[in-house]
């Protein structure tokens, strides 16, 4: 199974990404290439993960690189509505736990608080990792 990606603009600088299929050794680059331009300008990216049936460590790495690139610019990501097996992979690796949400409402609340924090200066861009 391949990977299809559609993208909606939610509001100014906030994008919702709908991956559908598998994010694996063969397809992770499709995700990174497709989001390259958006990562350079977005304030927040929400991944609606309901259509993702499988993810490997290469897929995790791709999403983590997107997260780092966003945070270095003072942005963030949110992941919502994962299938149980995909959730298990993220839970095992722990690294994205603060950005994982069961519903769009929860993810929206997180993004609102985050973007308000950036605006009032209480949330700063993160220093790049070595």
């Amino acid at each position, binding site marked *: 199974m391949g990977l299809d990606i559609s993208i909606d603009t939610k509001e100014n600088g906030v994008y919702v990404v709908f991956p559908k299929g*598998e994010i*694996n*050794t*063969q*397809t992770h680059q499709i995700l990174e290439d497709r989001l390259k331009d958006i990562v350079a300008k977005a304030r927040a990216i929400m991944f609606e993960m309901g259509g993702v049936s*499988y993810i*490997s*460590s*290469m897929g*995790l*790495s791709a999403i*983590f*690189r997107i997260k*780092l690139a966003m945070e270095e610019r003072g942005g963030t990501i949110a992941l919502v509505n994962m299938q*149980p*097996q995909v959730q*298990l*992979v993220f839970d*095992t*690796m*722990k*690294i994205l736990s603060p950005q994982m949400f069961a519903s769009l409402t929860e993810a929206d609340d997180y993004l609102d608080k985050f973007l308000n924090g950036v605006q009032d200066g209480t949330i700063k861009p993160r220093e790049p*990792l070595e």
Partner: protein
Amino acid sequence: MTTGFELNEKLPTDLKKVTPFVEQVFRKILTLTRTKEEIFKIKLALEEALTNAMRHGNALNPDRHVKVQIKADRKQIILDVHDEGKGFDFQSLPDPTERDNAAKPSGRGVFLMRSIMDTVEFYDNGSGVKMIKKFS
């Protein structure tokens, strides 16, 4: 359902070969178990082992190969993946769940394999890995 299968393959080092091979094995596993979580974990462990063998073991050298032996019956599946590299120190990998290690390219696959399979044993200095998953 069948009673089992055996597979012996020698794959060239080419990351594009990983997914088609994993899908081939996936179809065979479906003849032994329908448990979604077990199938997912076996598929993931095999992809991680193959990707590690090609990227880190064989350093993506297309002249090197990865040997795969799979033996499965109604009770369990044994996956054996062996590359042609010099091995690695599998006992001192960085913990990929630590934030400072999260961006590092290695360690995540091995961590996942150890988390989702019942047994994971490295041999030949880490150039081979044997993994077992028992079916429920």
